[in-house]
């Protein structure tokens, strides 16, 4: 059984605002789309004692994450009347203030895009084998855990 090619979701470093703008522009040719729901995860400079988070270094179990993402994508398309759905997640260092997750759902009517986006973000946080190492201003680090 030959496996179909899995769509890559990983990008090196932060997701730029320019990249997001280009993704939006690409969807302005589809005249059946009436709503886009976008979620952006941004690295916070949380204070940890005397130090601050300078950035997060992301690693992933890439093969498993892409399989899992493919499974989630199928489930979301089955559940909601979406036109399209794109996910981009950073690997490597993302400095505080920069975007590390970009989820983009489009549909003819708003409800589908909004509900799909909300559900997908929750599932990504809970089920995608990705780990963030918070790098502090004194170069110490600690491992992040999603709640």
């Amino acid at each position, binding site marked *: 059984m030959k496996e179909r090619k899995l769509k890559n979701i990983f990008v090196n470093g932060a997701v730029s605002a320019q990249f997001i703008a280009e993704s939006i522009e690409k969807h302005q040719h589809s005249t059946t789309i009436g709503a886009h729901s976008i979620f952006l995860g941004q690295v916070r400079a949380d204070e940890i004692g005397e130090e601050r988070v300078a950035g997060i270094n992301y*690693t992933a179990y890439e093969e498993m994450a892409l399989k899992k993402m493919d499974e989630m994508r199928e489930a979301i398309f089955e559940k909601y009347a979406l036109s399209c759905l794109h996910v981009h997640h950073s690997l490597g260092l993302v400095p505080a203030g920069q975007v590390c997750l970009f989820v983009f759902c489009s549909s003819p009517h708003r409800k589908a895009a909004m509900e799909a986006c909300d559900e997908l973000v929750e599932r990504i946080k809970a089920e*995608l*084998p*990705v*780990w963030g190492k918070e790098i502090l201003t004194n170069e110490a680090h600690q491992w*992040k855990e999603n709640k």
Partner: protein
Amino acid sequence: MNIEVLLFGRLAELLGSERLHLEAVADTDAVCSQLEGLCPALKQLNYQIAVNHMIIHDNQWLTDGMTVALMPPFSGG
């Protein structure tokens, strides 16, 4: 018999390696106890196990060429 073991996040840091090869391991419990032998601190940590990309909840028999991943709590996004 050759089992590939992948370690991630805090676990890779603790064991000083992201990838190990084990031979005399009949099941996933054997993988864990061998690794706990190498690094007793592992017993205190919370992690999930995936065999060939599938998360398992009980002990699973292993056959040659399988990949076992030890995964601490996720923190993507």
